[in-house]
């Protein structure tokens, strides 16, 4: 195993291949975005400001929370949920809200020279599945839990 394989470099998904949106985009737009990217295995939207500065990330969890807060409340109270209820429970209004209201903050980021193990550690620590990779204050892409896991298991199996 060379040094190179220790690094996350090869696992970075360039920003151009990863879904991202401005923070004022709506929940509806974010859903459209993830609907389209489903097949690629990208399940999180990076959120930027008008200067292309990363301001947050929107995961499926964030979206579902944003989409169905009422339903979540009702469910905890033991009320059954139906599709009709989903559509009638003020969802339209929720859909028009900007994603900045739902996104999570970006707590950590990686450098392309960082190691796989550091990435694995941070992913566990932050309880997240995607980490932005920065270069000179610019987001160049992301690394995903799936890819890190796959790479690590490869190494483990060769032991």
């Amino acid at each position, binding site marked *: 195993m060379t040094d190179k394989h220790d690094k996350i470099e090869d696992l970075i998904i360039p920003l151009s291949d990863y879904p991202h949106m*401005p923070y004022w985009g709506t929940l509806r737009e974010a859903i459209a975005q993830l609907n389209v990217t489903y097949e690629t295995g990208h399940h999180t939207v990076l959120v930027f*400001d008008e200067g292309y500065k990363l301001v947050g990330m929107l995961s499926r969890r964030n979206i579902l929370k944003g989409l169905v807060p009422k339903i979540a409340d009702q469910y905890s109270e033991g009320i059954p949920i139906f599709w009709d209820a989903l559509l009638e429970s003020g969802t339209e209004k929720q859909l028009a809200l900007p994603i900045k209201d739902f996104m999570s903050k970006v707590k950590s980021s990686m450098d392309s020279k960082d190691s796989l193990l550091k990435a694995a550690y941070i992913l566990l620590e932050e309880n997240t599945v995607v980490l932005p990779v920065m270069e000179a204050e610019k987001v160049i892409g992301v690394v995903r839990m799936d890819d890190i896991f796959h790479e690590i298991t490869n190494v483990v199996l060769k032991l």
Partner: protein
Amino acid sequence: MAKFLSIFDFFSKNRRNKILNDEDEKELFVERYRAFREILKNNHQVLMTMGDMQEKAGGAYLFDKAYIRSSNSTLLSGIEKIIGQLNLLSDNRYTGLMVSFQKCMAGIQHLLESRISIPQTGCTKDLKKITKGDIASAGGKIANLGELASALDLPIPPGFVITTWAYKSFIAFNQIQDILVDEIKRLDIRNYDALRATTDKIQKKILNSTIPPELENEILDAYRAICHVTGQDQLKVAVRSSAIHEDIRASFAGQYISALNVTADEILDEYKSVITSQFSPRAIFYFKDKKFNIENMSMAVGVLAMVDADVSGIMYSRDPAKPDEHYSLISAVWGLGEYAVGGVVSADYCSVLTENGGINISLECGDQKVMMVTNPEGGTDEVEVPRDKIGTPCLDNDQIKDLAAIAEKIEDHFGFPQDIEWSIDKKKRIYLLQSRPLRIASPALRSGMKIPTAVKGQTILINKGKVVCRGVGAGNVHIVRSEEDMANFPDGGILVIRHSHPEFAVLLKKATAVISDVGTPLGHLATVARENNVPAIFNTENATKILVNGMKVTVDAVYANVYKGSVDELLRQGKKEDDFSSSPVVKQLREILKVITPLNLTDPRSPSFNPSGCKTLHDITRFSHEMAMQEMFDLTKDSNFSERSARRLVAEFPLQWWVIDLEDGIEGGSRGKTVKIDQIVSIPMHALWEGMIAVPWKGPPPVDTKGFLSAMLKASMDPSIDPAVSKRFADRNYILVARNFCNISARLGFHFSTTETFIDEEENQNYISFVFTGGGADDGRKSRRVKLLSRLLERFDFRVTVRSHTVFARIEGYKPAFMKERLKVLGHIIIHTRQLDMVMYNDKMVDWYYKEIEKDILSFFS
């Protein structure tokens, strides 16, 4: 758009006129805006004049050479102004246009001054061999008469014409051409005594001239030939004038003489008398007054076997009082027809109604006491009408039917109602002596007369629109939406288009007819349709939806109907050539139009789209109009305005704008530091604004330019962004307004757009020009955003060109209401598509946003 300047090119471009300080820049701009406005106005005028000239050249209208001169000078002065104003607008960047202009002008001048060429023919020609195309050699009257025999096989007296070429040889032989021209040119026609004296002198000179021996022989040979045909040794003839201008009705009608019952010995003298009549005071007055070219004076003379008339008269193939019904009018007198023409005696009148194969005659008998007859020795006599004939109708019912049938046949052939002279000889044989177009009140009605407004029993697919070029055509529908459709356009196809873009001009050589949903009757494509004589209906609103490819249709571009299938009745009528078509003045106009109307510069992207590529006046206007818009657009980019001339726009809007009033754009002038949106009275600005605020903007709040600039520089992902671009971030967003004009630039983050528009009542001046560029995302996303924009703009009728990550869109030539709607659409698109590059993950996102935005637009768009 011809110049695809990338946004970066023009941002880094040195500003012109840097010598002027900021405070002067507004003045400079106002001045240039005025030049620009004048260009639009003159462009409109010029296209209108061209359209009118083309319509006249169609041959359906009456005009004279003075018309050609005056419309030509209107055209030239309009274009000269356009060139001058364009150079003012552009710091003399298009002085090369003057070279092209002068070439065109010289070409036109040459044609205007050239003589109407007299064809080199024999000195005489058999009447039966003459057609209406022979006007220049046989004169109008005889050419039309010959046509009756040669094309319709109708009876005319045996005869021949002494051609205009013979006239020319006669004048040349006697060497009097220069004298005639000099005398007439010097003549002051307002001085009647001088007019009289000069014409007397000229007439004497001609009467005293000698007929060249060869001409004399030829005339006498031709005379002997008709003697032979009729079997009469001493055949008497009628000698009739037939001038080449005579067909242009209002002009010389009745001004030239004819001699009746002329004996063999007198023919040559009568020939001279008849050509002398061309120089009567009245004729010369008219000729000079109408500015006909003196060198063009020429006359043919018809020599016709004299009909020994029992009954004569005139008939109208249509009742001028009831032009839409099938009435013909016949007046008849005993003896020679001169008395019927002159109204000397009380003639019989009958009105004949032919309908559904039946005929209905109503006859009013005259009370004719005297009649004109031929004298066996030559000449004519007035004698009393024989007693047995007084009170009896000149014509029996069969004769009336025969005459009415002839009248109908002639009208059908020429396509116009006719005024016909006829005689019936002692053996009851009908002879036609003359046929000319009948003047009916509305010239517009004339050539369409025979075509019913809607053909019964046929399915009308489209019944609205504006006829742009008259005519009828049938063929298969070919809807052209893309360049590929253009490439596949079949010969003889019916061109069906959404908009009348000039690019389609290349198809008019192949198309049988053109139909557009929307379009400008005075636009470039309309001009080219008329140039190529392709029947065209514009503004049908929904032809592209109603018609389907391959469908056979008949386009009636007279009544603006489109029929399913082939309507033979219309096609037969449509083929008739208009009656003035072969007149020399019409021919001359057509020649001149060849230097005026063809459009060579159809595609602004072509390398030949430059001043030296302008071969015609139409090219010059097209080029200048295009460049004027581009120059105006570039000018706003290069301008900078002082604090004093700009006022901040106060509006609920996340962008800051400074407004500059160019001309009547702000209510109450331009005092004060701020201006409210309601104070702006610019028509296009308001329309755009409506679209901008129709759906609330969810983007980032306004950012002060300083903070914005630093954010942008730090976050720049695109190393290709020119440092000059950053300078523009520090610049303000300006809106330049005038009552009918608006130029608005919007810059936010990495996104720039400029919209320029002019809207007035004259649709030909109207346009919206739009450029959008920039973006902060990766190239793939930027391209997809460009794709989204293009699709949306095209969806709403803009013409779009994409270059790299820049979208150029243009829409022009439509009515104010349509333009305002499109501005509203554009306002919405400007606001809601910028910064969308970030979300353009793949083409599916393009589709998704396209549908979303389209839905938004349609929701406020009636």
